[in-house]
């Protein structure tokens, strides 16, 4: 059936295609290709090969789809699919990949980058034992070549030029002009004296060898020049970095991403390697998982469920209220009620934080005056939990209100009329007609709202960072921490810096939990079927 259908469509379409439409399509395609080629060139220079491959595949795919008639049905979907691959699938794949690496502080660079970083540059040069360090002043000849006036610690002066041996010199003699306080000639015949910044502006300066190798002097810092040797040298045969100064050999340890010496010392920085399941086993073996994670998990579920129920209840209530045509100015009021949704969440959360301050907060002062209580929102575990749910209610109800208003208008009036004739009251109409019909279309949204709140990092983190703290735990954790904020604590706030690999591993575990709960919800409530029946 489908084949016939599309075949028919294609015939019709080809018949009605005009030249200008084809031209437009080709031009649009050319534009997309141009952007893609530009992107690929940029990304090749950055060396992000995974992205290069991906963009290339997507671009080729788009071209095929738009140029070959037999892929006509795919044309409408292809932009969406392409964007989805780039914006959703790629980050997902990358997250999974990261979970199997040691990508973290101390392991940010690739092995190639690390070798280059350790074995090159001015920072790798050292003065060998017994070497002399000189103070230097640079002079530039008319033809642009440089020469150095060197002064050692004893006050002996030398004049050094590339390719000629160092020769002792004294200011005020021969071509050398009269000395300044340091004994450096103020001028040399045929040369201009440079200050340190002018000299350093010449990028070549550190690599110029003044004198005859191997005893040539090189500039190391703005104040010091000496006979220099590179300290760390990479030996590809041993796959090791050799320390010329100490004579130590640091062998690449590709299991841990470090260059390690025989006595266990490592070179900084390390590099990125894949570590298999290590991040996962670390998670399951950590005291963190044996400790408070069950409590955190229960609270996470409670928080997500309570957020959905409260926001839905309030949203539905308001939607019902303003769905009644008898209410005046309902459009205006409805627009105003969207305000909490429109204000950036982090601003509202901080405002709530202020209002709930136990000493100065407006809310607490009011409660104190009317009810004579001043809830300790930030220090008592139960009040803190209630506070988080309240703030989330404020943030979440406008969304539910919008969704419900739309769904309510879709329920046909004649059903209500029929119910009235049968003698149903307001409550019965709500319970037997409105709610079941509403849940059909809103149900899946409630489930995704649950999944969203399950990972609602912003509310918890901005409201109280998961505090107040639990006592007697093996890792720092708070009473309002949900799984995501707990992960944040584990992966970023403890140990030696940020551990992206570990965080990615925990994220995957959380994803599995959320996915399981969500799938189970859909199965259990059979919402798929209902949705597709009714669309």
């Amino acid at each position: 059936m489908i084949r016939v259908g599309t075949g028919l469509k294609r015939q019709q379409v080809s018949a009605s295609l005009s030249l200008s439409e084809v031209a437009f399509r080709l031009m649009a395609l050319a534009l997309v290709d141009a952007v893609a080629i530009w992107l690929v060139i940029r990304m090749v220079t950055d060396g992000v090969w995974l992205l290069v491959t991906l963009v290339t595949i997507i671009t080729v795919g788009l071209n095929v789809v738009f140029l070959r008639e037999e892929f006509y049905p795919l044309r409408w979907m292809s932009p969406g699919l392409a964007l989805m691959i780039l914006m959703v699938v790629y980050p997902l794949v990358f997250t999974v990949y990261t979970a199997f690496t040691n990508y973290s502080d101390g392991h940010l660079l690739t092995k190639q980058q690390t070798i280059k970083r350790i074995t090159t540059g001015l920072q790798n040069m050292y003065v060998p034992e017994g070497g002399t360090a000189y103070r230097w002043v640079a002079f530039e000849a008319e033809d642009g070549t440089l020469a150095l006036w060197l002064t050692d610690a004893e006050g002996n002066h030398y004049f050094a030029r590339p390719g000629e041996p160092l020769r002792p010199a004294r200011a005020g003699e021969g071509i050398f002009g009269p000395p300044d306080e340091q004994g450096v000639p103020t001028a040399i015949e045929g040369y201009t004296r440079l200050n340190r910044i002018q000299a350093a502006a010449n990028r070549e300066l550190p690599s110029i060898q003044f004198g005859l190798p191997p005893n040539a002097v090189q500039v190391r810092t703005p104040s010091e020049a000496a006979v220099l040797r590179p300290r760390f040298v990479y030996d590809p045969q041993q796959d090791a970095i050799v320390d010329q100064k100490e004579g130590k050999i640091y062998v690449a340890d590709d299991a841990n991403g470090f260059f390690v010496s025989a006595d266990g010392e490592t070179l900084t920085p390390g590099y990125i390697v894949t570590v298999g399941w290590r991040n996962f086993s670390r998670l399951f073996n950590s005291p963190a998982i044996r400790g408070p994670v069950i409590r955190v998990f229960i609270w996470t579920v409670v928080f997500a469920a309570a957020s959905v129920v409260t926001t839905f209840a309030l949203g539905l209530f308001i939607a019902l209220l303003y769905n009644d045509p008898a209410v005046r100015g309902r459009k205006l009021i409805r627009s105003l009620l969207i305000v909490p949704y429109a204000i950036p969440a982090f601003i509202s959360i901080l405002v709530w934080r202020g209002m709930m301050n136990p000493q100065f907060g407006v809310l607490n002062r009011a409660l104190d005056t009317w009810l004579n209580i001043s809830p300790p929102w930030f220090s008592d575990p139960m009040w803190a939990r209630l506070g988080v749910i309240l703030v989330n209610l404020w943030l979440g109800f406008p969304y539910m209100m919008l969704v419900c208003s739309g769904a309510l208008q879709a329920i046909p009036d004649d059903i209500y009329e029929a119910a009235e004739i049968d003698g149903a009251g307001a409550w019965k109409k709500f319970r037997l007609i409105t709610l079941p019909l509403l849940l059909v279309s809103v149900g899946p949204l409630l489930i995704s709202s649950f999944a969203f709140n399950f990972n609602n990092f912003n509310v918890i983190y901005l409201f109280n960072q998961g505090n107040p703290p639990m006592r007697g735990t093996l890792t720092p954790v708070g009473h309002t921490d949900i799984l995501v904020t707990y992960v944040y604590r584990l992966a970023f706030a403890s140990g030696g810096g940020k551990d992206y690999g570990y965080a990615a591993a925990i994220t995957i575990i959380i994803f599995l939990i959320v996915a399981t709960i969500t799938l189970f919800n859909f199965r259990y409530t059979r919402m798929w079927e209902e949705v597709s029946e009714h669309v």
Partner: protein
Amino acid sequence: MIRRTILLPVVVLVVMVAVAACGGGGAQPTAAPPPTEPPAEMAPSPTPEPMEEPSPTPEPTAAASPTPEPAAETGAQLVIWADENRAPIMQELAEEFKAQYGVELVVQQVSFGDLREQFKVAAPAGEGPDIIIGAHDWLGELVVNGLIAPLDLGDQQDQFLDVALQAFSYDGQLYGMPYLTENVAFFYNPDLVPEPPTTWSEVREIAAQLQEEGQVTQGYVLQVGDPYHFYPIMTAFGGYVFGRDEKGSYNPDDLGIDSEGSIAAATWLDQMVKDGLLSPDVDWDTMHAMFENGESAMFITGPWALSRIRDSGVNYAIAPIPDETADGKPFMGVHGFMISAFSQDPLLAQAFLTEFVATEEVMQKLFEADPRPSAFLSVREAIDDPDIAAFGEAGQNADPMPAIPEMASVWEAWGNAVTLIFQQQEDPEAAFKAAAEQIRAAIAGQ
């Protein structure tokens, strides 16, 4: 039928994607404020960090404009990253630098909160700056990742405050050129407290007396659960966070959170709360507001709060941290210049710092643009603002805030211990011992 078969996979896909997107949220925690830096969030740093400012690419602030008579054009150029508070003064210096030496200094503005993360990404890709301006406690992270290069100040070394150089040293090696220091000091209201207390026992007595007389709501205020402002008290009782080795570097194996002195300080705190002299409901803002409207007579804060206290019109004076069994020492934060290990012009970058910035003239300009005690001795000694000078005085014996990566494990557990004491949920000794245990476990890699 057809509609249904097509629709179902699409819905599945969309929902899966939505769920996946939520699940992926945890993988991008860089958007959230870093918790590794309590001083920056608890004591709002002078450069407030916008929560989630999307500025992926630093915007060049009008590259050095042509000056009337540039020195011989060399074509060389340096790129420097500075936050919004420092970019204007750097821009000014860039013009001067170009006029004097013909070297272009491109100042790019990157917000303080984003600078480190962006530098971590941009530098290895070869797109980073030659120089960044930042805080010394970034050092651990940047050095461990191999992103900044050692620095040799040569003969300029003696011109800098010793503790500031220490702060910018890692493993005995200097990695930055400091230019300003900041530390907390003891504020008191001379109308209520004629003479500044010199010990914490005195603070306690004065607070108790003032409260008894009903002159204030709370004699001494301290923000709940904030280890940064608690550290001066801890050191006054002989406590410490990390011990130091012979080179003066912090030693992560010697944790002092459960040392005798730290517990003594915790016990003092506990007693204050028990006696109603410290309230468990005071946060950073409350603490300042109470001092500013005279509801409180003494507290600890830093130079970043100076302007709001001045504006409030309250009578105030600044004194060094009170002592007890030992010297009360605040943490010192030091800001300075660091050179990228990936810079193509490391020599020029160094020369810019040691020959141009490390001069009294430029250091004075930097001080005037951001009046906090300079790390450059001659400028520091010539400070004529008595308040800033008082902060400098209070910071005379300060400890540089540990920059070792292990410090990241300390803040949270330590802060929680202080909070638990404030809330009277755990006795001081148990709280600090538990915190020390948590920290040791975290340092050992769990």
